[in-house]
């Protein structure tokens, strides 16, 4: 153990080829002290008074109790052995799921596992890619999705994207867009106004933009733009809301606002959210589906998937061993 003495500071080092005088060390390095190591957290299940369980997440300590779980209503969409191919590459392999009204379904998994592809297939957006092919059945309210005209389907199943993409128009025009372009005749502004106000209210944006409806949408902040996109998606009165990592481009405060919004919205819609943020899935999701390389590895209620996952891979992912 070499301890460099302060008194040796300033003296020429014997083997120094330049023969210069080295400056004195800035601090003393104690290389023989005891090591201090951070201990890994112990996974504990703490039972709350309400009967809800709070689970610890890796590195986070004890989490607060989850908000009230959503009550699952009737089934809105169902997938049976859905497979999606991009050319010869099978991106989604035989997935069967159920999407119910009144609850939030969180799709989790590492990058490239096919969760975004699955989401985009739900409103047939993958058909925009020329090399995409689909096998299996998707049903909405019992009807095969292929039997419905695709624009009508997309009005019942709306989507919010990762990057907020409001149109370069005013806020009012953005929210009213879907309503204007749907019908055979363009409704007037007066007719549209109550719908726009209601959608903005449901998206929690109304108070902030109530008197600025004619302002350009692109001047809003990132969180506001994303809420505007949610309002725009809600304006057409969808039955299912698909969200593709809606908060990944936003700051924590906006994220919290949008997560509260999702919890509010689930009572009237079925929500499917794709997220790579495990904590967010835990906070927001009622059912969780874990996907890995195109396969649906595990599907179940949130508490069960996070605290007692059935598959070993799920356990490893949820603990943060990979991802």
């Amino acid at each position, binding site marked *: 153990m070499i301890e460099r003495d302060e008194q040796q500071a300033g003296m020429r080092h014997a083997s120094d080829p330049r023969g210069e005088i080295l400056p004195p060390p800035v601090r003393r390095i104690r290389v023989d002290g005891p090591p201090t190591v951070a201990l890994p957290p112990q996974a504990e299940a703490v039972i709350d008074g309400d009967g809800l369980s709070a689970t610890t997440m890796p590195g986070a300590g004890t989490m607060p109790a989850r908000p009230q779980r959503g009550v699952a209503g009737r089934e809105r969409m169902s997938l049976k052995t859905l497979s999606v191919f991009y050319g010869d590459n099978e991106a989604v392999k035989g997935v069967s799921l159920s999407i119910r009204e009144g609850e939030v379904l969180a799709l989790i998994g590492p990058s490239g596992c096919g969760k975004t592809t699955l989401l985009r297939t739900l*409103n047939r*957006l993958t058909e*925009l890619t020329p090399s995409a092919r689909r096998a299996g059945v998707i049903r909405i309210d019992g009807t095969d999705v292929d039997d419905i005209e695709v*624009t*009508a*389907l*997309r*009005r019942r199943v*709306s*989507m919010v*994207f990762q*990057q907020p*993409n409001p*149109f*370069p*128009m*005013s806020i009012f025009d953005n929210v009213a*867009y*879907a309503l204007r*372009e*749907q019908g055979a005749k363009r409704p007037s502004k007066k007719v549209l106004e109550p719908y726009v106000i209601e959608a903005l209210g449901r998206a929690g944006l109304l108070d902030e933009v109530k008197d600025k409806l004619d302002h*350009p*949408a*692109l*001047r809003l902040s990132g969180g506001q733009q994303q809420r505007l*996109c949610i309002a*725009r*998606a809600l304006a*057409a009165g969808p039955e299912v809301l698909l969200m593709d990592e809606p908060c990944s481009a936003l700051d924590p405060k906006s994220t919290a606002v949008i997560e509260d919004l999702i919890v509010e919205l689930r009572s009237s819609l079925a929500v499917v959210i794709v997220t790579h943020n495990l904590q967010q899935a835990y906070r927001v999701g009622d059912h969780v589906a874990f996907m890995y390389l195109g396969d649906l590895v595990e599907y179940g209620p949130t508490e069960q998937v996070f605290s007692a996952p059935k598959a070993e891979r799920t356990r490893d992912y949820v603990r943060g061993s990979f991802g």
Partner: protein
Amino acid sequence: MLERLREPWTDRRAERVLGALACLVLLIIIFMIVFVALRAWPSFRENGLSWFSAKGNADVQMSRMVNSGANPTNADYQFGAWPLIFGTLLTTVFATVLGLVFSLLSAIFIVEFAPEGIRRLIVPVVRLLAAVPSVIYGLIGILVLTPFVGNHLISSGRKKSVEFVIQLSGTSLLVAVVILTIMITPIMIAITVDGLYAIPRAWKEGAVALGVNRWRAMWTVTVRAARPAIMAGAVLATARALGEAIMIAMVSGAKAFSPNPADGLTFIFEPMNTLAANIVQNSESINAPAMQATLYATALLLLVGGFALSLGSWIAKQPLKKYGTRA
């Protein structure tokens, strides 16, 4: 001095030299306006504002100028340019409107709806059409289209109906507008396609995800956002249509005649002439002072027209910048 050129240039010197080259451009424009205006002045001086009106047969006036030789009297300067101005307006406006519609539809086709094979064919074709010189368009016009129109499209009954006013022989407004449209459309297509590609795809995808069909999404979102680029293309094409001299000189009939809309459909079969084409046709006699002043006055009008176009497009772009479209 050669030594000073060989030693490494200082930044100051380089900046001054390059700046001088850049300012040469400005000098050229200033000289252009001044010199053209100077030579145009006699014609405006003798005619005043009536230069712009219809003062009788412009062809007769111009041949008088040629015959007046080196010492024209004031009367020789008389000129009423309205038939030429009218011809220019007709061809430019028709060609630009037709070309705009045509090019916008084609651009949307290329960007969104064309199958891959057709797209690979149409892109080089458009580029080729944009590069073809105007004299070749004129050649095709006068050797192919004009006889076709004269022999097959204009019935003898029609010719009889305007016999006392003008001869209909195929060289006409119709041929001029058709070929002019074909000439300016490729440029507009190229600029519009670039403009449409510059719009983020996320916007169109968002619109499609809302349940709007692809055509509608394209039209109401992407095309709407690309309006500044479309306008820039339209201005460029209009400027080209305005200044097109050779092709029109070859196909239009070289008669300073104002086609009469009251003639009904015959109107498009009547010959006409434009300001630019007129300059080319009379350029051999440009040494006669009266003709020279008139031609330069015409050129000045074209120059001012071009300026007005650029200014107008700049003004029209301002309100579009408000909502965040790429201007």
